């Protein structure tokens, strides 16, 4: 078991900053996920860890050892490539056995281990096929088996389940976690599927434009986003603009441009607010309630503009303050229709106040808000 330490790693391609001074510490045996939109630098960072890219500067440590200059084949990592990279000139069995043969494992044991791992990825009996005879998802599982079978120090998985159907994906997730925990292999998992990231990871790093936006366990990433990007990218949020009225310890009071007072909390310890500072308040759709709760809460008067019944809940779009659109998931029982006025309630603890200053994502949120209003 090793821990991985990524220290101020930067990798550029010409003008493109694919990875921009990223520092992350990954603990022994942890399943650590890199989550971010397409093109944010996840694959690049993973390839730096595997040794295929040399960082422009910064170092990678496995435990105390600086491996930045170690060639890939000496790092003992098992990588699943985004495009699988299954060798077309070898049978499935030989693909999977390759790493074991390099490690001079006796052939009887090779056979046993390869068969076991193929079983685990639901490809028992596929050993004699050639890669051309496999579907995309099957190829992906061969790639996974090939990385798992050598039981490496570190597993590097680049969207290893992206090509599987929903049911198989969930199955494979459990299988992955089982194997990962059984051997305690430190694992870096890349995905852009947030549900996947939240459901399997010990911790998640949310990445955007080559930078780490937040590192936390899945629960905190979801409930305590540290900035506008994370709040928007994970799940979905309604953003309401406002400015600070007062700060009283953890409780923050703000006022929207149309004069609605709101109270919420800040998820950040490194930010201090002053009166008048611009902020956004982020509220998750499922945190809007129709019934008045008993805990301290905000009341938001709205006018419903559309209701979509989805089975488990009513997806409601409503206007506040004339120009602003909120998105709420309300009890399916509630009888709502377009044009009704309705007061929504949100607990103070579910009202997240995020600073606008220094947040590169703020203009984008502004756009989303304006876009929502213009849609009518």
């Amino acid at each position: 078991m090793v821990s991985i330490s990524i220290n101020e790693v930067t990798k550029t391609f010409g003008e493109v900053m694919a990875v921009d001074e990223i520092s992350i510490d990954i603990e022994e045996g942890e399943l650590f996920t890199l989550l971010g939109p397409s093109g944010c630098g996840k694959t690049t960072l993973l390839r730096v860890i595997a040794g295929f890219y040399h960082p422009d500067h910064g170092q990678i440590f496995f435990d105390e050892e600086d491996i930045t200059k170690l060639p890939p084949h000496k790092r003992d990592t098992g990588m699943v490539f985004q495009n699988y990279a299954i060798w077309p000139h070898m049978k499935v069995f030989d693909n999977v056995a390759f790493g074991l043969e390099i490690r001079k494992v006796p052939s009887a044991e090779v056979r046993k281990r390869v068969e076991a791992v193929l079983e685990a990825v639901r490809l028992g009996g596929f050993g004699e096929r050639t890669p051309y005879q496999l579907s995309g998802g099957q190829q992906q599982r061969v790639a996974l088996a090939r990385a798992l079978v050598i039981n490496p120090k570190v597993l590097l998985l680049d969207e290893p389940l992206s090509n599987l159907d929903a049911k198989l994906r969930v199955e494979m997730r459990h299988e992955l976690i089982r194997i990962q925990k059984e051997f305690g292999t430190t694992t870096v998992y890349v995905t852009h599927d947030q549900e996947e990231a939240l459901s399997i990871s010990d911790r998640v790093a949310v990445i955007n434009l080559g930078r780490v936006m937040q590192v936390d366990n899945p629960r905190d990433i979801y409930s305590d986003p540290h900035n506008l990007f994370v709040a928007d990218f994970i799940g979905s949020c309604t953003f309401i603009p406002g400015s600070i009225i007062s700060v009283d310890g953890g409780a923050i009071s703000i006022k929207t441009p149309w004069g609605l007072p709101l109270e919420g909390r800040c998820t950040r310890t490194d930010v201090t607010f002053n009166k008048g500072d611009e902020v956004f308040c982020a509220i998750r759709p499922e945190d809007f309630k129709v019934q008045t709760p008993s805990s301290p809460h905000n009341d938001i008067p709205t006018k419903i503009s559309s209701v979509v019944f989805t089975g488990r809940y009513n997806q409601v779009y409503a206007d506040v303050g004339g120009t602003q659109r909120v998105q709420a998931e309300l009890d399916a029982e509630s009888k709502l229709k377009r044009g009704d006025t309705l007061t929504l309630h949100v607990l103070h603890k579910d009202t997240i106040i995020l600073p606008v200053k220094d947040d590169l994502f703020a203009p984008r949120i502004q756009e989303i808000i304006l876009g929502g209003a213009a849609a009518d």
Partner: protein
Amino acid sequence: MTRSEATSASKSNQADEKQNSNQNEEKRKKTTLEEVLGIGVAIKLRASRTKSYFSSQAYQLYREMDLFTGIQLISVLVLFLLFLILPIFQVMVTAFQVDGQWSLFWFNYIFFEDKTYFPLYIFQHLDSSIFHQHPIGLILDVKEQPIIFDPDGLVLLVQGVDMGIILNSIYVGLLTTLFSTLIGVSLAFIMARYDFRGKTVLRTLLLVPLLVIPFVGAIGIKRFLSVDGSFNLLFHETLGIWPTRFVLEGFAAVIFVQTLHFFSLTYLSAYSAFLNIDPTLEESAENLGAKGFGLFRKVTLPLALPGIEAGAILTFILSVEDLGTLVVYSGSPQVRKTLTYAIFTNIIAPTGNVQGVATAMGVILLVIAMVGFFFIRRYMSLRHYAMLSKGGTWNPRLSPSKWFHYIIFYGFIIGILTIAFIPHAGIILLAFAAPGSWGRTVLPSHFTLANFGIVFIDPDILGSIINSLVYSGIAAFIIILIGTSAAYIVARKNIPGKGLLDLLVTIPIALPGIVIAIGYLLFFSRDPLFSQFLSPLIIGAPAVLITMSYAVRKMPFTVRSTFAGLQQTHVELEEAASNLGASRFRVFRKIVIPLIGISVLAGAMMSFVYCMSEVSTSLVLGDIAAEYGPMTWKMYVIYNSLAMGPSLAAVMGIFLMILQIMVMATTNVITKRRSSALIGL
């Protein structure tokens, strides 16, 4: 830096946003600082950046190299240094020396003193007195007229004019290029833009001229078009269609022979240039009202021009450096006055003694070829080639043909093909003609297989064939080892100076063989360490030189093919293996070689055939010791010395042809590569 230091250095990094905003601020500060500091400091900053550029390049080299890549790179460099760069360098040095002293003597001699080489007065007034003082030059005395008509014997002889050695080589090359390009581009346009029945067959037939190298083709044509050749006997004497006997001699014959071979080359390069034009470009011009010839001239031709030019310039280079045709027509005095032939006759091979004037001519030939090469450098480079072989996926624009198209196309193409088959017909007839049976008759009076028997029984001739097979086989093996290494480094390694490596492995196509040959003679005989290579006493020494010259000269075909193969295999397949712990060597052996094996094999087979039919270095180096002479050298020797020489040479020519057909067919089947890979463009 240990890990704890490193982490403490970045302890603030855990807090995410703050770090980001700090960074932003720092960056902002940096830019404003540079703005504020002004020009002087900016220059200093830039200077320090240049310095770090070099050290970063050095570091880049260090990082990309591992033991295996290092060995690969060094073997490529050593091979090319020893068997290409140093010998050519030696030629240049020798050309500028007289008795060990630096001197321009030979160039002065060539350009200003001896009018055989460069008759300056051509450009001055054509003073009649000079005409008589110099029986050579542009003097149209009776024997030297370009076209001679002898009314008594009813003979029309076309031979060309003599302008002095240097200009002869250039104008013969230019005319060959002009005719080849005209024919090749017309054919290519018809093939690329029209759809008609029988096209597939014609397309295959158009590759046939490539099967016969000019050396062999010349043997066939010479027999066919001589005074008593089949053509005159049939059309003049027997049928009476042709009013006179018609004889091609001298430069006219050389141009004719070369054109019949090289038009295939210009055709192939123009054909792929036409196919690579994005059809929407032509369609949008049509949409704006362009059509017919206007469309061709304004849109199609300009777009295809770079590719056509590349083919044309390569033709020029190959024509200028061709020695095979010249030795067949060397009976004509003017043909002996060409650069390659003059160099050839100024070598006394067994001693490795090269006349100073030959080295100077070698330099001139080299300059001509290099000027051409650098015009088409971009097209020869591996990267460009890979780009081309990927492209061309769109549907080509094909027009249906009307009846008059059929008449024009069939008339033109079949006409060209008929003439283009003369060399083949000639050597096939020669090969089967019984000794003395083909005097004054249209066809030989007796056919026999005896010539084949002699070729494959006579120990000397058979020996030379075996020599060639062995040399070419070993050369192909070296080409595979070194060529795949070079292609691999260019395709996969990000080392500084990669462009130079690309240049090094593609340039041999354009280097005149005769210059390389005299380079070997000079380099390996002057240097005491290497001089033993040339001594006939040392067993196998000339064999080594011939083999190495083949390996270097025919390397580009394999390198290209391998490079294209590498481009089509994703690098992640290699990375996956090294990720699982495979060393560089193991990745190469287990993953790279199996994946690109077919491309390597196809390229190596091509290289092998071109080694077998190599002429210019073979003729020079073969002279060192008869028992090591390769097959083409033997063909030259027997062609000139035995009465039945032409027939035996023709048999050997057929052998080469069959070999090439087999290789072309095989490579076509195992790779679905475009056929212009055949010509190295």
